[in-house]
């Protein structure tokens, strides 16, 4: 079970992506839990997650999240703006899985 956490300002636009990512995961037969939160909740939820992806509009928060992420030992990255704009669940899922493998 892979646990993927997404974060943006209010967890709204990332939750669009969650739906698409779940569809993509189902299509591939990958079991995973994917959820989105507002940025102020992310540090808490990071403890439950295997990877954190942040919306490109919040990329200035990366440094702050990296500190907590290092403590709980999970990778963090910013979602590519184009995939974000297209709500491309497949691409973002692949990114998350890629981060988990490396």
């Amino acid at each position, binding site marked *: 079970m892979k646990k993927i956490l997404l974060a*943006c*300002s209010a967890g*709204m*636009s990332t939750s*669009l992506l969650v739906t698409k990512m779940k569809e993509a995961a189902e299509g591939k037969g990958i079991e995973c839990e994917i959820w989105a939160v*507002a*940025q*102020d909740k992310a540090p808490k939820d990071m403890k439950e997650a295997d990877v954190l992806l942040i*919306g*490109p*509009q*919040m*990329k*200035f*928060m990366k*440094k*702050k999240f990296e500190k907590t992420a290092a403590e709980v030992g999970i990778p963090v990255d910013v979602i590519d*703006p*184009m995939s*974000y*704009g*297209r*709500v491309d669940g497949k691409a973002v899922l692949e990114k998350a899985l890629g981060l988990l493998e490396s």
Partner: protein
Amino acid sequence: MGTVNKFMDVLENILMPVADKLNNNRYLTSLRDGFMIALPLIIFGSIFVVIANLPFLDLLIGEEAYAEYQAALAPASAGTLSIMATFVIVGIGYKLTEFYEGEAIYGGVTALAAFLILTPQVLGDVTGVIAAENLGAKGMFLGIFTAFTAAELYRFFTEKDWTIKMPDGVPGAVSRSFSALIPITFTLSIFLMIRIIFSYTPFGDVQNFIYTVVQAPLTALGSGLPATIAAVLLIQIFWFFGLHGQIIVNSVMDPIWYSLATENLAAFQAGEEVPHIVSKQFIDSFIVGMGGSGMTLAVILGIFLIGKSRQMKEIGKIGAPAGIFNVNEPIIFGLPIIMNPIVLLPWLVAPVVVTVITYMAMASGLVPPPTGVIVPWTTPTILNGAIATNSWQGGVLQAFNIVVVFFIWWPFLKILDNQYYESERDDEESTNQSA
């Protein structure tokens, strides 16, 4: 193209650190998160203000019954909206103490106690009462300063480690409440001294001092048209570089915009004329929020009306359902708006034009200014404007503004669409040729 890109790189290199600094500043972060803690309570109160002031209800049930109905619902907002500074104070004290990894809840309640120590507890000849306005709009700035200072002092005294150590075997909760005793005692004593010192000044109390010297001038500045246009432009510029402009600008402007909104609400509830045009809702409902940052609902409309390229149509399909609820990241990143020189002009100009139109419409009395009720930002446009101003005119003004934004965007959207269309055709031709 090369110089344009270079110019963009330079600008991004300037903006990114600014966003980073503002966002990671512990005071601004705890301020924003503190407001976030108060938000559900504020929205609860707002909902009941809206229900209590439903239009035409007085005609329907008669004036007497309407007055009773309003009185019955009044405590909902009196217990939340009218005293919202107290929640913000607890929120800031909590969040700042949490940042320092201290006992957050003690940071929160110490901040509240410090604020109440500074607050006059006399009204006319009656002692033992606190005027609600001091816990609401009027107390907002003092509350924020107090929360910062109290949390800092609490941390300072905790780190001095002048704590009372309990012997082993004492339950954790008991020893924790004792370990907070000394830091809290020192912190609150300092605030008591501040209060006593101010009682010897012409201001009489700290509330009065901060209100006269800091809050009133600052909110007056923030409610003016030039400062509002500057703030709106800044939000747009940050977004153009793909950074969440509101989060960044609001972290500085929210105390001002919320204070103005709460003053409006107090007047609205008292049946008086609403004093300020610019407030939290002016920005959220009328300027920034029509379909999401940069009023992209009109852009979606444009995509449906003039888009002939596949790319345009695809973005419209993805963006429209979310756009109705004012979530527009698909449009911002998908069109794309960010870093796209073709749409920079409408992106910057449209919100400024709408700001001026809305300001004028409200200043002239054509449309009533927002009442101070907080409308959740996901409320669809038109409904949003009607609720925020408690009038149908608010909804009409939003509809009008969407049309204005649409016409400002139109030529630029057309250029973009043509570009996509051409490149799609070229792609098809080259595939056909190679096939």
